[in-house]
């Protein structure tokens, strides 16, 4: 639920990084935080377990400048990936304006990716939102592991499993090392703001 403040000429929008556990959602936000530290005025908020897994969510507000005369303020969130936290994921999705689905490229994680995308569609439906209509970008993470000889899912398989019907923009990325992390974020911001464009007069 984006907020458009005509008095301050400001837009606030909520983007959620969704995907299976240990897929790299938090690592995405940590990389963005490190990369844009000088432009982010607050600390990144994380609510983790003792085992360093996301318990509730991570939160990172970022100002990206002006579009059509409006200051754009994006609130980046992650959800906890572990299967047992389904109700928490649903809570974090409340009012979401755009989604990055962070898929795990490891071959052994194929089923988890598919199940997580299904849970995303179900949770969005609980808010009367349609996964095929909401701004969405796929990120196929951990592609850097290919050079280390670790079996990864071919991108064609990931596209077929996850994106054959949705046909959303997608990026091969490494949240740990950085390639395409910023590009993924830029793309989802563009798609999300574009969906609000008709409200920005």
């Amino acid at each position, binding site marked *: *639920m*984006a*907020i*458009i*403040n*005509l*008095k301050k000429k400001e837009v*606030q929008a*909520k983007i959620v990084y969704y995907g299976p556990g240990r897929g790299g959602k938090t690592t995405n936000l940590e990389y963005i935080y490190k990369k844009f530290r000088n432009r982010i005025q*607050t*600390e990144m*908020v994380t609510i983790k377990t003792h085992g360093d897994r996301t318990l*509730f*969510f991570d*939160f990172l*507000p970022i100002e990206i400048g002006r579009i059509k005369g409006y200051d754009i*303020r994006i*609130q980046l*969130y992650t959800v906890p990936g572990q299967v047992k936290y389904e*109700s*928490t994921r649903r*809570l*974090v999705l*409340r*009012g*979401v*304006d755009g989604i990055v689905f962070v898929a795990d490229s490891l071959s052994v994680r194929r089923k988890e990716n598919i199940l997580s995308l299904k849970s995303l569609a179900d949770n*969005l439906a609980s*808010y*009367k*939102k*349609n996964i*095929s*209509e*909401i701004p969405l970008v796929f990120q196929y993470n951990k592609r850097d592991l290919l050079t280390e000889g670790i079996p990864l899912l071919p991108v064609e398989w990931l596209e077929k499993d996850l994106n054959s019907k949705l046909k959303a923009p997608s990026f091969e990325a490494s949240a740990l090392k950085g390639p395409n992390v910023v590009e993924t974020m830029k793309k989802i911001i563009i798609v999300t703001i574009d*969906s*609000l464009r*008709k*409200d920005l*007069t």
Partner: protein
Amino acid sequence: MDKKHSTDTGGQRTYIFTPAKLSKIEAVLAVDLLDVGVHSVTLIDMAGNIISTMDNGENKHDLYSLAALAAGNFGAVSTMAGLVGEDEFSLLFHKGKKENIHFSKVTDEFLLITIFGKEVSLGFLRLKVAEATEKLIGIL
């Protein structure tokens, strides 16, 4: 182009606040709450976005993080209420040594966060928040 309206994309809603409406909201927050001595008051939506915020000029809180956490906290507590067979817990209040936080649902979509110190009693604050909430419902 006033008030809220639905966009046609998958049930997604965008809330548009005009200067006139925001001025009315600010007037309620200032007169009903700031003037009785609270330190800061912030109206947010349940997604964690800030609609309007006012303070006594001495607060340096990170309000964007606070709004995100407050929305998450409220959602979590509402879910807890459901688990024990309650529709909701009406009082959400955290007490600190110097600062206290009071959360109050305005409508299903909006939440009021009030930060106050020892100078204001909880009972009086609840009364003033209830009055402000009634006025805000009329504006939102």
